[in-house]
């Protein structure tokens, strides 16, 4: 067990709380930097996807986990970023500019979505975002002169200072840099008044308001930041796939994104990346496991969906706090070892109250 004696307020504010943090995150950073040489190409591609989805997850986490606004149409922002990036890159706009434009345009779309979202909560908000997702998807499909419509859009590999980043390693580092910067930005935001305002809105709108928090402004801001991150992720996604089409940004994608943050652990920044790891690794694990099963089961179509569903159910049942929650428990257990008491993590009986009055 570690006890920290705080001697200054600054200590409360710092990102790394103690030497252990510095050590472990340093190790992680070191691994991420040498990864292209340490692991093979296939795993690196997976890692790249994890970073991309982690960025998107970070945005959704901010919105759903910290501000308490659930979006079932987040793929629309992903798409807005991807298309902006695709179109601009193909027009020859330099990569960094295109990336910023992608984030900015998605943020703008986020602000538009926030308009109806300001007045509604809960399931109504869910359906509002879902509807918006459908409409945006339709726009991608219909606005052929720009998006190429259903035929899709080829995206050229990114170029940075005349240096092509299309290939595995270069692109991986690009994603890594964007992911690290976004994470730091979000962490900073969360330890400042803006982040606290988000959390306040999540817990009680009425008292947030009476503390002087402008609900509309902060909700809109939350949507905008969230959308901007999704847009960034989308831009990288566009390059990674090098081909985008409207149906890649449909409701299933949105649900995947939502599942990602829930499984990762709502309300934690770690959760966004843990969820991304889950989302990307799961299908691979399933297809690896297939060969171990008898052919009737292993080769049957639908197995993937079944396993996916079962895992999701298992998570909600046994670890409602998601992967991050599980990790916290393991950590506490290790720290307490050998003094761990049995009932420590026993779940309390708990009871719900109407969400309609909040």
């Amino acid at each position, binding site marked *: 067990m570690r006890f920290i004696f705080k001697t200054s307020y600054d200590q409360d504010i710092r990102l790394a709380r103690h030497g252990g943090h510095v050590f472990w995150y340093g190790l992680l950073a070191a691994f991420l930097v040498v990864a292209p040489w340490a692991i093979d190409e296939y795993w690196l591609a997976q890692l790249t996807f994890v970073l991309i989805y982690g960025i998107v997850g970070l945005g959704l986490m901010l919105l759903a986990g910290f501000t308490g606004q659930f979006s079932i149409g987040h793929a629309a922002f992903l798409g807005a970023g991807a298309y902006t990036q695709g179109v601009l890159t193909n027009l020859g706009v330099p990569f960094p500019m295109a990336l910023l434009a992608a984030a900015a345009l998605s943020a703008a779309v986020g602000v538009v979505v926030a308009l109806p979202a300001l007045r509604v909560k809960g399931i109504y908000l869910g359906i509002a975002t879902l509807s918006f997702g459908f409409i945006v998807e339709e726009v991608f499909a219909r606005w052929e002169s720009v998006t190429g419509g259903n035929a899709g859009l080829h995206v050229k590999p990114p170029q940075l200072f005349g240096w092509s980043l299309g290939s595995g390693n270069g692109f991986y580092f690009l994603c890594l840099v964007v992911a690290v910067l976004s994470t730091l930005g979000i962490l900073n935001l969360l330890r400042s008044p803006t982040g606290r305002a988000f959390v306040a809105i999540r817990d009680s709108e009425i008292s947030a308001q009476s503390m002087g928090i402008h609900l509309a402004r902060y909700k809109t801001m939350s949507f905008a930041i969230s959308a901007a991150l999704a847009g960034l992720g989308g831009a990288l996604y566009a390059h990674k796939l090098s081909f985008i089409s409207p149906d890649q940004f449909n409701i299933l994608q949105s649900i995947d994104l939502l599942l990602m943050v829930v499984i990762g652990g709502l309300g934690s920044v770690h959760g966004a990346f843990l969820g991304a790891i889950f989302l990307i690794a799961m299908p691979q694990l399933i297809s690896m496991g297939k060969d171990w099963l008898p052919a009737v089961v292993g080769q049957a179509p639908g197995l993937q969906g079944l396993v996916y569903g079962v895992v999701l159910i298992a998570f909600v049942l046994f670890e409602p706090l998601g992967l991050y929650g599980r990790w916290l428990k393991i950590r506490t257990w290790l720290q307490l070892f050998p003094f761990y*008491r049995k*009932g*420590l*993590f*026993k779940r*309390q*009986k708990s*009871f719900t109250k*109407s969400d*309609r*009055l909040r």
Partner: protein
Amino acid sequence: MTDVVLQLLNVESAYGPIKAIRGVSLKVRQGEIVTVLGSNGAGKTTILKTISGIIDPRKGSIEFQGKDITAKDPAHIVQQGLSHVPEGREVFPLLSVKDNLLMGAYTRKDRDGVARDMESVYAYFPILRERATQDAGLLSGGQQQMLAISRAIMAAPHLILLDEPSLGLSPKLTKEIFEIVVRINRERGTTILLVEQNANMALNASDHGYVLENGRIVMEDTCERLREKEDIKEFYLGVKDDGVRGERRWKKKKTWR
């Protein structure tokens, strides 16, 4: 003894790693009003919640009318004839006042009895009759408290657990509530376990009292005798306006530990 309605033996409950009550034993006899006093966070609410099955105790056992109800499903416990007026009202906010009362009588089958009791709670609290069709969530704090108490009465239980019934009630109504409690106790023979911050009222209305500190029972006696104790006077009764403490800011240490 057969006339013990409720008996707690060495009960221990916790919220996660935090123990809220430690080894609490208490007894409530048929037809009695028993009160539990204790400062903030002493664990009074936790005791009541443990009795009605909302929290499962870590240790110990709870017997109600001779049957073991330790860690049973709350709905099951209520059906045995125990009714709980929770801390913080807990009305059904989107149901009408009348439907709230009907839900109070959910476990009852006798329609006539329910109708009669409905009339009597309307008589206790006429405002509820006035607002019978209004959503309960829109009542004022005190009105919701009246509703919460009435709902428990509607269940016609053997034992009522009352958690701070006077919370947020006007002085006049506070007294009326206690009068009603005493009346129910006398007229219907309902046994009552009462948790209350208004110790003056509680000690006067009850037969037997327990004092709880930090999750442990530190004193137990008849109310008559409790009223005379110095510590009780000092910490719970306070007495009128300037109180015992008067303009003294420092606190005296409690002597029962």
